[in-house]
């Protein structure tokens, strides 16, 4: 179960917790924003499924921006408001895309195509999808090791125990598997260029 802070938390606490991927902070965002955002999308030419997709995409990109330092903490700024606005922009971008352009009018004067930051963030989705595909092409232990080490953040010692290997061999295997993955990834990016 996520460990929630015992007293009311500040915006800075929330920012730090999101940066450290604390469960309670992620849960808080879902509880606070999912329904209002879904309501807003459905009032703006979308379905509940569209709302879920845009919310997920928006949250993922925004949280990545927090971790990489692209989004910095500001005093007196409510993080949920910033995230809500960010997810709105993601949906407006979807509306402006070719899938919807001919069907529905834009509900706001905001033009997502001119929002360079947003477009750059959304371009990252392509990179994420290529890395995901590359991992899927890895086989057996290698794929498992990569997921344990880089996604589940297990230590080399923990992975060595799980694979019944020596720590030194696991360390070497981590290097070999990451190299394999890099080759697959580069091949995939060359195919799409």
């Amino acid at each position, binding site marked *: 179960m996520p460990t929630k802070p015992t007293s009311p938390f500040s915006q800075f606490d929330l920012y730090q917790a999101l940066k450290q991927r604390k469960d309670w902070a992620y849960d808080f965002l879902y509880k606070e924003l999912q329904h209002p955002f879904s309501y807003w999308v459905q009032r703006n030419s979308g379905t509940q499924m569209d709302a879920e997709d845009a919310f997920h995409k928006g949250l993922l990109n925004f949280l990545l921006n927090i971790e990489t330092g692209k989004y910095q903490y500001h005093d007196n700024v409510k993080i949920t408001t910033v995230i809500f606005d960010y997810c709105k922009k993601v949906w407006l971008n979807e509306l402006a895309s070719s899938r919807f352009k001919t069907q529905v009018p834009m509900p706001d004067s905001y033009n997502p195509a001119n929002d360079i930051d947003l477009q750059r963030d959304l371009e990252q989705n392509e*990179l994420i999808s*290529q*890395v995901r595909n590359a991992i899927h092409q890895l086989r057996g232990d290698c794929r498992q090791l990569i997921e344990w080490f880089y996604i589940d953040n297990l230590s080399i010692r923990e992975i060595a125990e799980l694979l019944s290997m020596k720590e030194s061999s696991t360390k070497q295997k981590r290097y070999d598997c*990451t*190299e394999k993955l890099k080759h697959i990834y580069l091949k995939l990016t060359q195919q799409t260029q």
Partner: protein
Amino acid sequence: MNSGQFERIEAYLHDQLSEAERRDFESELQKNSIFRLEVEAQKNLYTGFQALAIEKKLNDSKKRIQAQQTAESKRRFFVPNQWSVWSAAASVVVILGISWWAVNSFDSSKDIELSALVDKEMTDIQYKSLPFESLQNISKTAPSRIAREKAEWYVALVYLKKGKAKEANKILARIAQNPKHHYHLQAKRILQRL
């Protein structure tokens, strides 16, 4: 690339090199294009890993919240107690009260139509949920013009909703007279219906 180079790149990307090591690394980056490509590929992989780790956490969180909500709704459905009976009775009283108020506030079909129109215009849930005083404040002090105009528009809509046509009219007329106002056309449209 050998494992030593791999670890050096990793240390650079995780900001774990000393000042001198970092300078050497960056100087090599500038001179050596193959090395630059290696670093770029490794950097992209780490960004991907980071995003996939966040995504996994997000999916876990979504499942937790859904499970909580399902449990909550089951509990509400299967355990009727005196409190829920009383709250149901209270809801009926509140609904009757609201209906009485609605009938008295909008005593003609035109008013009801207007109320529906106001609801339709209030598409921004954040502005809609702001206290009236905050809206008034934003309409005067927000740094961006669009935020001020949007808040001003919502102030007029709230006045309409409260049945204060005179106050609403005054603001709507001001907005309608200003062709540069973001809600100029909407205000005109509502004024025609008033």
